[in-house]
C-alpha cells in the first residue's frame, strides 16, 4: 500500500518537475529577443542599372521597372535592407532552425538578394522565370561547404540544400552574369533587416551576447547586449557606405 503511494507520488512529482522545466524552456525560447534598426549614415549610393538586353525574357520582365544593382538597398529614412544580424559570441547551445526558406529566381533577379541561414538548415531554390538559370553557389571548399552547380530551366522542380559550416557564400547565375546574391550561413538564431532596416532576432536564450551586423559592401559591426529571461534587448547599427 505504502509502496503504491510512493510510486504515484514520485510519478506526479516527476511530471510536475518535467512540466516546469519544459514550460520554462518554451517561455524563455519564445519571448526573449533582440530588436533594432540598421541605418545608413549619409546619402544612399547610386545603384547602377542592369542591361538585360541579352535575354529578351529578362528585359521584358523589367520593361516598366528597370533592374538595378542591390549592393545597397536603402529606404526613405535611411533604413538598410538585406543586413544580416546574428549572435557571433555568447551562444552556448545553438539549435538548428527548422523552417525551410525559399530562394527564388524571379524576373532574372534573386529574391531575396540575401538569404540568412543556420548551419544545416534546409532551404529551397525555386524559379519563377521562363528562362533557364543555373544556380551556382561558390563556397570555399576548405570550410566544409562544397560548391555545386545545377540548372533550372522553366518549370524546374525546387532544389533543396543546406550548408554545413558558417560562411558568407556568394551565389551566381553564369547565364545571367548580373544575377548575384548571398547565402549568409551562421550558427544559431539570426535576422535579416526589412525594407525599413528593422530586425528582430527571436528565440534568444537569456545571456550576454555579441550581435554582429553584416552588410555585403559596408562590412560588419558588432555590439554587446544582455538579454534577460523573457525580456528583450535592443541594438541599433549605423553604417557608412564604402
Amino acid at each position, binding site marked *: 500500500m505504502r509502496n503504491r503511494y510512493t510510486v504515484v507520488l514520485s510519478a506526479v512529482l516527476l511530471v510536475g518537475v518535467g512540466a516546469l522545466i519544459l514550460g520554462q524552456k518554451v517561455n524563455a525560447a519564445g519571448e526573449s529577443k533582440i530588436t533594432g534598426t540598421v541605418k545608413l549614415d549619409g546619402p544612399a549610393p547610386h545603384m547602377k542599372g542592369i542591361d538585360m538586353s541579352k535575354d529578351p525574357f529578362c528585359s521584358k520582365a523589367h520593361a516598366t521597372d528597370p533592374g538595378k544593382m542591390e549592393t545597397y538597398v536603402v529606404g526613405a529614412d535611411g533604413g538598410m535592407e538585406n543586413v544580416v544580424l546574428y549572435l557571433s559570441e555568447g551562444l552556448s547551445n545553438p539549435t538548428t532552425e527548422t523552417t525551410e526558406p525559399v530562394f527564388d529566381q524571379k524576373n532574372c533577379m534573386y529574391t531575396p538578394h540575401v538569404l540568412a541561414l543556420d548551419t544545416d538548415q534546409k532551404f529551397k531554390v525555386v524559379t519563377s522565370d521562363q528562362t533557364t538559370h543555373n544556380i551556382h553557389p561558390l563556397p570555399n571548399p576548405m570550410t566544409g561547404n562544397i560548391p555545386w*552547380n545545377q540548372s533550372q530551366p522553366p518549370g524546374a522542380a525546387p532544389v533543396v540544400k543546406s550548408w554545413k559550416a558558417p560562411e558568407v557564400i556568394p551565389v551566381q547565375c553564369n547565364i545571367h552574369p548580373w544575377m548575384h546574391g548571398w547565402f549568409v550561413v551562421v550558427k544559431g538564431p539570426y535576422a535579416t533587416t526589412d525594407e525599413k532596416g528593422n530586425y528582430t532576432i527571436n528565440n534568444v536564450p537569456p545571456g550576454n551576447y555579441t550581435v554582429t551586423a553584416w552588410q555585403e559592401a559596408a562590412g560588419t559591426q558588432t555590439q554587446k547586449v544582455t538579454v534577460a529571461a523573457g525580456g528583450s534587448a535592443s541594438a541599433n547599427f549605423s553604417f557608412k557606405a564604402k
Partner: protein
Amino acid sequence: MRTGLGNCSLLLGAAAVMLALSLPSSAQLTQYDLEKRIGMESHVGNITGHAKDAKPEYRRFCVGCHGELGDGNGENFPWVDPKPRDFQLGVFKCRSTPTGTLPTDADLFDTIARGMDRSNMPQWSNLTKQERADLVAWVKHFSPRWVGEKPGTPITVPPEPAVTPERIKAGREVFARVQCWKCHGVLGQANGPSAATLTDDLGRPIAPFNFTEGARPKCGDTDKDIYRIFMTGLDGTPMPSFADNIKPDEAWDLVFYLRTLMSQHSKEKAMAKQLGLKPVDPNAPPPQQ
C-alpha cells in the same frame, strides 16, 4: 648565474617564436598536413594505389604545373591556360558522380589517362595502371575532403538505345527546352548570348565548348561521356548539372542531337542532314516541361 638565466629565457623566447612561425596555418595546407595523409589509397578495379609510391612520378611529370603542394601553383602556372587544377580544393570537372560530390577513384584514373583536350594536360596512357592508381591516391592526399567524405554515387547511365530520326528530333527539343544554346549557341559554335561573360569558380574567363571545331570534349568523347558531362555538370566551371531536368531517355536523345552539331562525321549528322533539321529558334517561347 644571472646572465646565464637571462640567456636561457632569451633562447626559450626565440624557440617559441620559431615554433609559432613553423606551425601550419589553417588557411594554407603545408607539407606537414600532407605528411599526415601519406597513407591515402585508391582502388581502381583490382588495383590498389598508394600515395607514398607516387612521389617520384608526381615530381617528375606533374609538379611543374600542379605544384609541390598540389595547389595548381607550379612553376608553369603563369604560362598555361586553362590553369592547372588546384587539388587542395577537391573540386573536379570530370566525374561520374553528381554535382557537389567527390569523383570516384576510377574517374580520376580515367582523367589521368585521357588528359584534357585543348589544355596543357597531356594523355598519360604511357604510365602503367599501377603508376596511375598511385597518382590517384597522391592527388587525393592533397585535399582534406577525402579524409571525412566519400565519393558520390555514380549516376546511372541506361544502355544506349539505337539512333533514330525521331530521337534526334526529340534531342533538338531538349536542347531548346533546357536552353543549351544560351552559352553553346544554336549551332554549337560557343557563341550564345551568355558565352562572352562566363567565368570559372575562381573568376577567370572561360569559354563554352565549341562543337564545330573538331575538338574532343574535355571529359571524354564517347556517347556515354557526353551523357555524363551534362548530367553531372563540370564542377568548377559554369556548366551546371541537368540531372534534375533531363530524364535518362531524353538524355540519350540530347547526346544524339549534340552529335549532329559536331564537325566529326557521324550517323547522327547524316540523319540530321536527311531530315533537313534546322537549328533551334532562340526567340521562340521556351516550351513547358
